[in-house]
């Protein structure tokens, strides 16, 4: 049992005698479960013009607008980006790890698919 309950600034309940201090579903309450009913979003950041958007991470948000603003605050604080894409994680379809053998291993013995069998002239750099 908690005999002493320490409150911080944002966490102070406004109703005395309330047993349920933190309502898990309510993002206002500061409870541990807050935001868990918000969907997960994947964030893609373009670091400068002309480059691809790269996966930066994921976050919770109630809608797309909030997801972009959260991404701006979480992932571009140090000038990492000039453009942000967000997509709800549930719309991303992934390959199954169980199928890794049939999907990827057939390429193992086909080294001729790499462009490594050409004699390059000395003048050509950056290959």
């Amino acid at each position, binding site marked *: 049992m908690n005999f002493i309950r320490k409150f911080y600034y*944002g966490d102070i309940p406004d109703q005395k005698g309330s047993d349920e201090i933190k309502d898990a579903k309510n993002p206002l309450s500061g409870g541990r479960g807050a935001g868990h009913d918000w969907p997960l979003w994947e964030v893609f950041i373009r670091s400068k013009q002309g480059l691809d958007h790269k996966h930066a991470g994921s*976050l919770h948000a109630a809608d797309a607008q909030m997801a972009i603003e959260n991404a701006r*605050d979480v992932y571009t604080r140090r000038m990492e980006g000039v453009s942000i894409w967000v997509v709800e994680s549930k719309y991303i379809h992934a390959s199954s790890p169980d199928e890794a053998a049939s999907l990827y291993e057939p390429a193992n013995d086909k080294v001729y698919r790499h462009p490594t069998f050409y004699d390059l002239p000395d003048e050509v750099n950056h290959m």
Partner: protein
Amino acid sequence: MKDYLIDYSLHLADNALILGQRNAEWCGHGPVLEQDIAITNISLDLVGQARNFYQYAAERINQSAGQPVHPATEDSLAYLRTEREFKNCLLVEQPNGDWAQTILRQFFFSNYLFLLYQELQKSNDSQLAAIAEKALKEVTYHLRWSSEWVIRLGDGTAESHQRMLNAIDELWRYTGELFNAADYEKEAGADPSLFQPQWLSKVKEVFNEATLPVPEQTFMQSGGKTGIHTEHLGYILTELQYVQRTYPDSQW
């Protein structure tokens, strides 16, 4: 002749510092991780603006005092002045309350700063104009962010709507002071009463979308701009100035 720009810069700096300090109290306690970072980002933006204004105030203080032995610095202005010397508006020192109250305070004040800095950009004083121009980009985002949260909470659930109503009850009385110009504002700065109509129309626009009522004209508290504060500022300064008061001139 009195240099009104000193008091005016201190006023602008104190506004930003105290609201920055209030928002920083959320650090580690935000309702969700992402909003914890968002509100503390805003806090850092405000503290950055405060530094610029304090540095400028210190420069002018030292000039007018003929380069004293112990010159004023941004640190001495932030950490060694007393409650009565702070010139921030009452609004920024009000407690965080719940998330709704923090959001509404930020919306009221960002809305105000957005208009104020736009005016200040045109100031004859090139330093103030430059600081305002730089800060305006940050404030534009703060206004957008807080407006959306007002709408989200006002037009959200019955609970969030009620909390916004409580926040309006709590904070509306501190909004009148923003537009009553103190002496130093009249002499050195932009007259805020000129853009009060724009401020109000933005509030109406956002509240309308948020299904929140705009309060009637009512009694307004004032005094902060001339150093007469609510009981909250003393506690803020106690925490803010603790290290400097306890270990004077200590270095990192």
